[in-house]
């Protein structure tokens, strides 16, 4: 059934009424705040200034200082690295585990249920567990630092590069099971007669995967890679509550930079400018998402 044939009514004003509450809500809570952020980014507003402080319009000055700020450029690099490693490790682990559990075996249902646990588990609760596990005096993983060939005595969450590694591992634990379940659904849609035909033609397991399985799960793969990127770009609480963006500002992704610049450094205008850069990035991701989606529809 294609999309056009599923529209059944066309004559009424009803769809506008139906969507009005959502449009109002988004206008009040998303669009209006965005306009405020854009406006603030063009001023010299600070947080906690006296009420009668005059706020000056400064044009693009904040954006200009962002261009010359090494912390901002570093935060862009940290965001990209974090997102990229999430895509590679979480989506990769998701695919591998899905292939593993794709064949029928005893206890498969149980494993699938188990895979749901980490991503259904709330961020704060996960943070509490990981801070405890990584505690360098008493944590079950953290105490390993006494036996490792490299120096982690500064703490897993408080020294570089271990803090960054820790948040990657934590994000991976939290997200890869989700990708695994989605991959599994896609793998089960791979037509069996194709796999059988390939087997008859003498293709080994690896060749079968490359020529039959991979092409049919490719759309899922691309979609999940993009989703992983989006999740990583949005991730705030897990990083904020474990490292706070530190040590120094080594794990400060763009969304953390927005928050810290406002609440730690009181520069509301600069924070807004970083936020506007983030909005542009979000917009670009949405465009990529749509392009991929329309390509997938055409090939159907």
């Amino acid at each position, binding site marked *: 059934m294609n999309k056009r044939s599923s529209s059944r009514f066309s004559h009424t004003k009803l769809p506008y009424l139906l969507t009005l509450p959502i449009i109002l809500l988004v206008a009040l809570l998303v669009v209006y705040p965005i306009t405020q952020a854009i406006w603030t980014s063009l001023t010299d507003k600070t947080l906690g200034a006296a009420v009668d402080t005059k706020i000056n319009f400064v044009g693009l000055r904040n954006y200009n200082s962002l261009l010359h700020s090494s912390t901002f450029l570093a935060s862009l690099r940290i965001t990209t690295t974090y997102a990229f490693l999430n895509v590679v490790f979480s989506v990769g682990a998701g695919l591998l585990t899905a292939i593993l559990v794709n064949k029928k075996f005893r206890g498969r249902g149980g494993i699938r249920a188990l895979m749901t*646990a980490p991503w259904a588990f709330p961020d704060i609760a996960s943070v509490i567990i990981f801070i405890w596990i990584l505690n360098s005096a008493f944590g079950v993983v953290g105490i390993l630092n006494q036996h490792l060939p490299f120096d982690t005595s500064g703490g897993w969450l408080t020294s570089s590069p271990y803090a960054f590694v820790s948040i990657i591992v934590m994000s991976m634990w939290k997200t890869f099971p989700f990708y695994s379940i989605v991959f599994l659904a896609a793998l089960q849609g791979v037509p069996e007669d194709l796999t059988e035909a390939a087997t008859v033609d003498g293709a080994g397991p690896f060749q079968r995967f490359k020529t039959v399985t991979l092409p049919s799960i490719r759309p*899922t793969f691309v979609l999940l890679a993009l989703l992983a990127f989006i999740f990583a770009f949005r991730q705030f609480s897990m990083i904020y509550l474990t490292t706070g963006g530190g040590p120094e500002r080594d794990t400060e992704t763009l969304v953390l930079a927005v928050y810290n610049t406002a609440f730690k450094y009181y520069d509301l205008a600069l924070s807004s400018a970083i936020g506007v850069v983030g909005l542009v990035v979000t917009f670009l991701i949405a465009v990529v998402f749509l392009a991929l989606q329309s390509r997938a529809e055409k090939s159907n």
Partner: protein
Amino acid sequence: MAIVTGSKFSNAIRTTLRYFVILLVSLLVIFPLYWMLVTAVQAPEVTLRYPPVLYPIDPNLKGFHAIFFEKQMGKWLINSGFVAILTTAITTALSILGAYALSWFKWRGKVAFGLMLLFTQMLPEALIVIPIFKIYSNFHWTDSLATLSLIHAAFVIPVGVWILKPAFEGIPKEVNEAAQIDGCTPMGILRKIIIPLCSPAILAVGVVAFFASWGEYLIAVTMISTEGKYPASVGLASTMSQLDTPIQTLLSGAIVYGLPPVILYMFIQRFVISGLTAGAIKG
């Protein structure tokens, strides 16, 4: 017809290897949660032993007692429950209307509406939570659990719409043609046919909305400043930052707060996945 590709022996090795890797992955997934349960019921002296004891010794429930009676876990859970229920009500109602408009109607602005939802869904809350706070503190709407649930709803509604849209589209055309002949209005069709037929998907939207709100931290910590109004995410995070809190207490809190969504999600997995991937897998 079985086609034998390898000897029985190499098959056996392959199967064993597979089970081994599956076991290993499962252990990695489950270990942090297992460790939470162990530490939460264990006496502090045992917890601090070196090397660590991997199973509970002298299990007791003191941590649970402390998180409820020394901290205000009960109150925080009630607050979280209130915000989550309100978020669920708003999200479910508005998602049904929005998905109906997107799936059954042809109208100008349909594409723009879809784009608006997509952008909202992808938008990191951290980018606009400060302006939201600034704007609504002018109206004295901050530090209110009701306002918090409105904001939560705004961010979950897109997911709700994407879960419901394919379900609504899947209703056979004959059904609504018959209903129209019987004199049913579009709203009547929604109420009498679509909502009953799609109740599993609607239930899934409710669960997703409930736990999206239940687990949310950033907006909650920015908007709510009175300790008595803290939802559980903020209460636990503030307990965590008080360094003298015993780890047993903290992890007991994480269990009480974290396990309900895990258990419920296991039942509605399928719907959640289709919503979060924006129904794009099947095109």
